[in-house]
């Protein structure tokens, strides 16, 4: 409701408006953001076999914005963003039964098989300065400001301490160096929830909007994080200070850490593709 209120203030700015693209001063943009977190990990699995993983992790989020041209160069917009965040994407430390001595437990690496996604919602304000005087098309730079919120109740995570399949892709590679493991454990754990995290993110935008018809434009861009502030249950952190905690735990603190890292990942350096509909 409050978004609509702000939109209703923004949209009637007729007196400042200029021509827009072929007379369209307002446009709606659907954006897909892919932030990249390249990972490289080497470790030993529970059977002491070597494990190596490289992963060009793509963290995809979506945004829908309503934008308004203010003059030949400037466009501002308001919108809603959604990111179905994956908390853990690679190896984590788990405490499992020792296969050689079932009465004992030991810490070992496990690979995440699947985890429920955590919803991250955000309110977005954007500012664009187009270089060539024909906003909202052409090359430009800009600023995105997003205020986001994440809340988690309970979270199921499936993991394995072994790796039976070797895959090689362009962006993802994981394989066993010595495949001698004989006793893989596929398990599942439910993390306790009641976590809340708010975020305030400022990102820089560099890109271009290419008109492909009188009504549609494609927006290709890069986003560079400038400031990422995370407000976890009782503390505020600057995102650069948050590191990944690869450890499943029942502790709220550690899960907080995981969410914080996920928000950092989803608001990292990203390349974006969007579709603009000129109204």
């Amino acid at each position, binding site marked *: 409701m409050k978004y609509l209120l702000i939109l209703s203030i923004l949209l009637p700015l007729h007196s400042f408006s200029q021509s827009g693209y072929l*007379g369209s001063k307002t446009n709606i943009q659907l954006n897909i953001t892919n932030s990249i977190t390249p990972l490289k990990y080497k470790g030993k699995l529970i059977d002491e076999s070597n494990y190596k993983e490289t992963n060009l992790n793509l963290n995809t989020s979506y945004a829908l914005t309503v934008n308004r041209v203010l003059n030949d160069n400037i466009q501002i917009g308001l919108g809603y963003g959604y990111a179905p965040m994956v908390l853990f994407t690679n190896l984590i430390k788990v405490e499992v039964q020792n296969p050689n001595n079932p009465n004992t437990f030991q810490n070992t690496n496990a690979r995440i098989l699947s985890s429920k996604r955590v919803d991250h919602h955000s309110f977005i304000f954007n500012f664009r300065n187009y270089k060539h005087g024909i906003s909202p098309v052409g090359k430009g730079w800009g600023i995105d400001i997003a205020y986001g919120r994440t809340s988690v109740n309970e979270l199921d995570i499936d993991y394995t301490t072994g790796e039976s399949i070797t895959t090689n892709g362009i962006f993802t590679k994981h394989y066993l160096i010595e495949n001698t493991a004989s006793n893989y454990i596929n398990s599942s754990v439910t993390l306790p929830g009641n976590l809340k995290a708010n975020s305030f993110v400022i990102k820089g935008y560099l890109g271009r909007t290419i*008109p492909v018809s009188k009504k549609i434009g494609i927006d290709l861009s890069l986003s560079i994080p400038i400031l990422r502030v995370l407000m976890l249950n009782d503390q505020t952190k600057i995102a650069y200070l948050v590191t990944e905690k690869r450890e499943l735990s029942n502790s709220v603190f550690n899960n907080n850490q995981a969410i914080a890292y996920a928000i950092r990942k989803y608001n990292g350096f990203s390349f974006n593709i969007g579709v603009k509909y000129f109204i």
Partner: protein
Amino acid sequence: MLKHFSILLFAVIQINSSFGQVNQLKNFTYLKASGEIPKEFLTLSTDKYKKDLGANKNKDLDKDFFLSTRFFIDELLLSGNVLFNDELTTYVNRVAKYILRREKGLYKELQFYVLKSNSVNAFSTDQGIIFVTTGLLAQLENEAQLAFILAHEVAHYTEHHVRDGYVETKNIKQGKGKYNRLSYEDKVGELSIYSKDNEHDADSKGIEIFLNSEYDVETIFSSFEVLLYSYLPFEDIKFDTLYFNTDDLIIPGIAFADSINQISREEDYDDHLSTHPNVEKRMDKSFDIIGDRKTKGNKKYIISETTFKLIRNLARFESVNQNLANRQYVDAIYSIYLLQKKFPNNKFLDFSLVKSLYGLAKYKNNFRFNEVILKLKDTEGEQYSLAYFFKKLSKAQINVIAYRHIYDMSIKYSDDKLLKKYQKDMLKELTLKSGIKPNQFIAIDSKTYNDSINLLVSSFDIQDSISKIEADDNLSKYKKIKLKKALYKLKNKDKFSIEETEFHLSALADLVQNGKLEKGMTYIQAENDLALKEIDDKRLLKKEKKPGLNIKKIVVVDPYMADYNLSNKKNNVKSEKNKIELNQMYLENHNRLDLETEIVDSKSLTKRDVDKYNEIGLLYQWISEILEHDEIEMISSLNQDMQPLKEKYNTSKFLFSGFIKYKNRKEFSSTHLMGIFLIYTAPIALIDLLIVHHYFNTFSFTIDSDNDKIIYTQSDNINLRASKHILDAYIYNTLYNLNKK
């Protein structure tokens, strides 16, 4: 008795033809094409190029030849400056038909057109199009000379000089065959020799054609003489120093030069780097070729002497238009002076004089006088006297002379609104820029004033005055010296320069006497003061927001499109195709605007669009003149010719715009080097080096034909691929800016 009757009849015919011409030239404005537009003008250059390339059997001619020639000639054909179906072209065609009467097939292959240009020239293309300029027609002495020049151009066509010249030029430039290892200077020399050989060849073949006619063979030699002195005005007659004088304006004789720069060009001028041999060589060779042979008659006219003279006069009148559009005001005045001897009280000439004087005053007031007046050392013949006169006049004097004549013309043509505009603007110049205050003007006419000064000068005793000055103790040494110098100067008044005389102060005596001048100047001064105050007030109140132009209808003039490839060469085929698409964009692009657009375009003409064709020529000339004036706000010499267009299109606003697309690869720079060293930016640096970068320039300006002012300009260099939609966006933006309130 019969003899007397013949003389009488001849005299009557002469008087009638002169009278007819006077009448015909009475309403002259500018030369226009008429009738149906020839097919050659309507076919797309791309189609011509493809057709001619397909039919080509000469292996030495590559596609570049067809590309460059077809598109270049079409640019000329569609410039609006080529005349067809008018009196001049019809006459040229009649002469051509006569000299080729035995080669009807050849005549049918050829097309003859007249090109509106003051350059004295005729040229032919490999397609068989022969152009004759109005500048050449204005200089000719008789029809036979035109016939020989046409025969010469026909020979260029029949001997394939254009095609062979292209191949030879390419060989010389590439150093092929016998041109291997020549220095640059030698290559230029070879080009010149080859071109001169072609000219001799065309003279020789042209003579053969000409010898089959009944024209006087001697006119071959006089044609060369016409070309020799073609850089001079069409006549060389002493300028009358009383020409500008009126009842009140008496210009002292010292204003004009005692002597002139003599005509320097001789028949054997240095031609070693010229494309044409000098006249002496051409005459000698022609003499050898002709030998004892004669033509079949000794006529100077076969078609018609009367028509020739009319055609020549039309070309001469047009030369005044060309002078004005090219800001050659002194040349224009000299031509007007020559033409007024035969056509006194001709409205076109009267108006052209107004425009010339107005132009000179405007450029003088804006400190750009040297742009519109030739250097005296470069002016030869009798025109020197006129150039000298204007060069020596002060700013105040030029303004007064211009105002005097413009005022007198506005009385002579009292119903003419344009002259009222000139008069008002010239009064503004006189008030605000001439440096003369209203009270400085004298209420007695120049003659009385000059006589009284002369009387005073001759009657006073200089020695007595000097003694009085020397005896005056109240005067300082410095003051005494100054006064004594002034006295000696006054006594030796012949040594005065024209700038030091004050003839102009009494040149508006009648207007001083009836109070009109002071009233007008005071009003303009007050109006100007008020305008300046308003600007100051606005500045203080910070009322920066400018109102929009709120244009409801605009005429888009022949949008320009050029597409350059990676090697920086214009892709003519693509450019033509894109231009046609561009035209459509201007018409379609304004659904959301309260703006009507109409287009005057050279690529979408039909055979009935001759009016549009003439409009294109006029519009191009108009815009180029206004762009030359740059920041000088002045009435264009074509203002009155533009008014019918305003009425036809129901708007006074004309938009000139275009796009120039180009692309390049970036050169390796220190930024790239840094980028490569930083491992993360290396891919970006490499991509930046490898990809082709697209750019385009866009320009548009809108001119109001009511006041000849540029009311909107926009130009940009854009680093984007100029896709259809991007161009659309720019066009819309331009139209939006014109339309907004």
